[in-house]
């Protein structure tokens, strides 16, 4: 490289390295180190796995962790099942203005804060809410029905909140599927179902994977929706992290929880990429 090009290179590299080192890499290493500390006295710490031991031996912690993981997987699958037909409709069936209008309509709700979306569901689902009133009016219930503060409400909120992140990659990949390929499938004697299974889904795989990864991540790390829509028994793992950090001020245990959450999400993302043979650059970039 010429000296001037080298200078330019260094100038461009510096912000990137500063950002990744100071805000991503070192903080995570530091968090891991803190999670390995055990408080043995005032301002005195030992290095030990005590926090991780607490995590694995306290049933509430482990149970919440597993529950959060399973419910995030379920939320991801429901989102995929609801979003796929609509994405297919937008990408392959709607044409021209209708197509771009529908796609825009999908985007609008997500320019609005997640808090507002969750608030909307609260107004709909609570005891004095619209759904409860509607049921009473229709004669299906004879008293107010409380639909908030349970796992189903959390699920509704999670699916709603992450819908867009499934739709956008799905529509994009499905749009690139040539109509003639589908026609060829039918010409060769395929039925609607076999064309879907043999042609459409394999073609959409990168979109499905990247949508699922993002939705899973967002559900796993969500704090707002489970807190607002969930009840006393529907604890989410992020709520444990928050309470260790902010309420109990036990940063060591909180850091261990944070690390476990990071580990779980990385494992699942990595696993999904491996199973489907995708790479992070291709699905995110």
């Amino acid at each position: 490289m010429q000296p001037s090009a080298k200078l330019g290179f260094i100038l461009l590299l510096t912000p990137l390295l500063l950002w990744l080192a100071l805000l991503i890499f070192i903080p995570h290493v530091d968090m891991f180190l803190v999670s390995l500390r055990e408080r043995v006295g005032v301002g005195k710490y030992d290095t030990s796995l005590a926090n991780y031991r607490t995590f694995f031996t306290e049933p509430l912690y482990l149970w919440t962790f597993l529950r959060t993981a399973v419910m995030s997987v379920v939320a991801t699958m429901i989102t995929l099942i609801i979003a796929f037909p609509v994405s297919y409709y937008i990408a392959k069936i709607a044409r021209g203005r209708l197509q771009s209008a529908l796609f825009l309509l999908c985007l609008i709700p997500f320019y609005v804060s997640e808090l507002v979306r969750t608030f909307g569901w609260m107004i709909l689902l609570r005891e004095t809410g619209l759904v409860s009133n509607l049921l009473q009016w229709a004669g299906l219930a004879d008293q107010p029905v409380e639909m908030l503060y349970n796992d189903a409400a959390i699920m509704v909120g999670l699916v709603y909140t992450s819908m867009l992140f499934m739709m956008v990659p799905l529509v994009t990949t499905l749009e690139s599927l040539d109509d003639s390929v589908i026609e060829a499938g039918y010409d060769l004697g395929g039925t609607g179902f076999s064309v879907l299974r043999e042609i459409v889904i394999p073609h959409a795989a990168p979109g499905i994977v990247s949508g699922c990864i993002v939705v899973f991540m967002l559900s796993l790390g969500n704090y707002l929706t489970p807190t607002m829509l969930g009840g006393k028994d529907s604890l989410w793992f992020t709520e444990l992290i928050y309470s260790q950090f902010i309420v109990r001020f036990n940063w060591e245990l909180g850091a261990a929880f944070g690390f476990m959450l990071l580990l779980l999400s990385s494992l699942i993302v990595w696993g999904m990429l491996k199973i489907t043979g995708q790479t992070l650059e291709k699905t995110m970039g």
Partner: protein
Amino acid sequence: MIPTIPQPRAIRFAYGAYVVLFFVYLALPLTVVAVFAFNDSQFPSLPWEGFTWNWFFGAERPQIGVFHERGILRAIGTSVFVAVCVSVLSVAVGLSNAFLFNRYQFRGKGLLYVIMLLPLVIPGIVLGISILVFSSTVANAAWDMAEWDIEALRPGMLLVVLGQFSFIATIASLVISARLQKFDQTLEEAALNLGATRLTAVRTITLPFLMPALIGALVVAFLMSFENFNTTLMLVGSDAPLTITMFDRLKEGSTPLLNAVSLLLMLGSSLLALAMIIFQRRR
């Protein structure tokens, strides 16, 4: 299932109905939030007590409107300030990253690119606590070594900006990179042949070409910062941005005031998004 292949009418109808139902589902929560902003009652729920503008303009208890509610106005101010800082910073770093990854070949480039994508797959709350832990480590070290109290490293505005920047910068980099990849580099070479310096060439040729992506990244970064919750929650100090303030209010119980704020938010972000789309179409 494409238009050129005939399907039974019943299936087509069912499919269409499903899509309609889906859009009703998308619109429903936002519609109720908007409608109940005008309910003349203390609660954003049925029964409907009549139409009022009080939750926007009311100046007296019990119906103090958005424009007379100091706490909310201050929170909006904080949010705008944070969002401007985050979006400008993210676009600046994103632009630099786009040039770095498009124009230079160096060892470890692929690895660095993957690391740059990682913030997108780290849960927001983990980003928040890791930055919180690290900044307090630094602050404590500064105090232990020199009795130097760095107030800025305690939870507050600076940490909120840094925390949001740490993942929004990735998105800005991707948006700008995608556009720079489409740039025909011979245009820049032509400018150089005509006697321009490298900096002039970039400023007069490349940057105008990138402008739609820069504006797009700026708007997206602004909106993402404005509505960020998870990362902000862990790093917030005494001056809370709007989402955190609204969350605290919502926990105490909701009044249509929150609906009014939400409606303004919806209008604001839709207008911003629409303006961006129109700007990019015109190009």
